[in-house]
């Protein structure tokens, strides 16, 4: 029994300070991302979520350059991008995608400049990899308090907005009739997405934070039939994938001769596998009638 445990949990796992920090911040990021992600998916704003992730990388790069807390950098840029996207008034969904695309382009351009400056001033490419793809076992423990404050703040906001946000996400007209300020709710939703993305950027990196935002939520939509349950399921799946990924990455030092696999890869891979399995097991989508008719007969006979 103890032998099995020591195979699953490689020596030092539970006593390692970096593992503990990664587990705490990772869980916070996963919970916030999962909870907010359900609304983002219902609203069809996955692209906006990904855009915030991309733009936040410029903040991460700036934080490196200035030597400040990277979470502050991610937060600053993602909240700025969220606000500017929502403040442009659009009438059509296609227009919204356009604005999102333009903000993304500008943000990534800024990131390119800042990364270039990072490299030329500190002559290291480490910053780029860390900002983009995360470096979970290198998160300074000093980030934990701010991360927890941001996480709790984001969850409190979703809790407050829960019903109006859900109604707006289902049908803005129905919400407006009930006196819900639809545009304000849209802005607040995207700001909370920005908080989730910034937290996730610290852990799995700016680019991969989309995986944590959309993946668990998408899986939860397949599993849960009611909104509250979907939110809890998404958070649980996110935490499970994050802790599982941390464990696999930690153990991987054993079998890769001390190099190890990036934690972010392990987390996102787990989410991807889970999504494929669940989506296969529960086909809720309509299959083309004509295309499958013949195979249907064949397999029945």
């Amino acid at each position, binding site marked *: 029994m103890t032998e099995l445990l020591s195979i699953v949990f490689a020596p030092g796992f539970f006593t390692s300070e970096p593992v503990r920090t990664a587990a705490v911040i990772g869980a916070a990021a996963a919970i916030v991302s999962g909870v907010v992600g*359900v609304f983002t998916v*219902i609203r069809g704003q996955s692209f906006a979520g990904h855009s915030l992730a991309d733009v936040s990388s410029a903040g991460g790069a700036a934080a490196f350059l200035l030597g400040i807390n990277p979470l502050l950098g991610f937060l600053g840029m993602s909240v700025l991008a969220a606000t500017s996207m929502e403040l442009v008034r659009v009438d059509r969904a296609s227009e919204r995608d356009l604005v999102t695309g333009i903000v993304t382009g500008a943000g990534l351009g800024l990131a390119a400049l800042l990364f270039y400056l990072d490299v030329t001033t500190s002559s290291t490419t480490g910053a780029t990899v860390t900002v983009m793809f995360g470096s979970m076992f290198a998160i300074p423990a000093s980030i934990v308090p701010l991360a927890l404050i941001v996480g709790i703040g984001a969850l409190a906001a979703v*809790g*407050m*907005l*829960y*019903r*109006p946000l*859900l*109604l707006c996400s*289902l*049908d803005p*007209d*129905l*919400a*407006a*009739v*009930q*006196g*819900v300020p639809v545009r304000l709710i849209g802005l607040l939703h995207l700001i909370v997405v920005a908080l989730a993305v910034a937290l996730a950027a610290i852990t799995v990196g700016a680019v991969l934070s989309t995986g944590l935002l959309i993946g668990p939520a998408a899986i*939860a*939509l*397949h599993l*849960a*039939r*009611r*909104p509250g*349950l*979907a939110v809890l399921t998404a958070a649980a799946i996110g935490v499970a994938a994050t802790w599982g990924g941390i464990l696999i990455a930690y153990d991987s030092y054993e079998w890769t001769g001390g190099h190890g696999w990036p934690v972010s890869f392990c987390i996102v891979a787990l989410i991807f596998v889970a999504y494929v399995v669940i989506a296969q097991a529960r086909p*809720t*989508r309509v299959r083309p009638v004509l295309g499958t008719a013949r195979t249907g007969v064949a397999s029945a006979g």
Partner: protein
Amino acid sequence: MLARGEILAVRQASVSLSGRSILKDIDFALEMGEFCGLIGSNGSGKTTLLRTILGFVAPSSGSVSFDGGSKSASVGYVPQKFSLDPYMPIRARDLVALGLDGNRLGLPLPSRGRWQKVDEMLEAVEATPFADQRIGSLSGGQQQRVLIAHALVRRPRLLLLDEPLANLDMRSVAGIVALLRRLSREFQITVLLSAHDMNPLLSVMDRVVYLAHGRAASGTTDAVVRTDVLSQLYGYHIDVVRVHGRVLVVAAEAEGDALAAIERDPVHVAQIP
């Protein structure tokens, strides 16, 4: 702008969309507890008028006045179009519950009273059998019932329904119309319901607003659904025929303007048995 007893007044309202004039000088008022049909064929402007009353569209001239009373969400609305992906995690009962308190902040605390109201409403629109299914997976008619329950559950002062009967079978049409009439009486709810066929509403309407070519005639059914009034509204001769308790609105001669009208308003022709 509201006279005594009136809850809604649309005064000389004109509406343009994308530079096109859609409604011209619409003028009518509804009294507390009235049941009013908004009748017109496809494209006559029913949805546009309802959205103007809701404040989603601003009239280019004229005004809309509404007395919301002391309630915070005093209007109920059943949109003509509602679509949600079938895998969205929202059951029929969740949407009805949001009709009750979707504008409140904070998490919904577990409350028996809340779900009891929701269950009663679902029962009333005969939606209980599919109350626990995801809305996106329901049929059009089933969704319509859930939307009606969503709009009615908070007992609004004014209820606007955009073609709520369009997806229902004949038996269900009679059931829903009777339910709306009963609730309207019971709770003094003023109902404005759009439809392209007025026949299911004939026995319950206190008033009709008849739309054609962007203009409206309004009054009691007997005062509006008449050969002379509708001919003037359409701008060419129209016959109003009553057979077996049904009203048929037909263009007299299938010639010239009238022929064009039939092509534009196929519903009226389709009513000929």
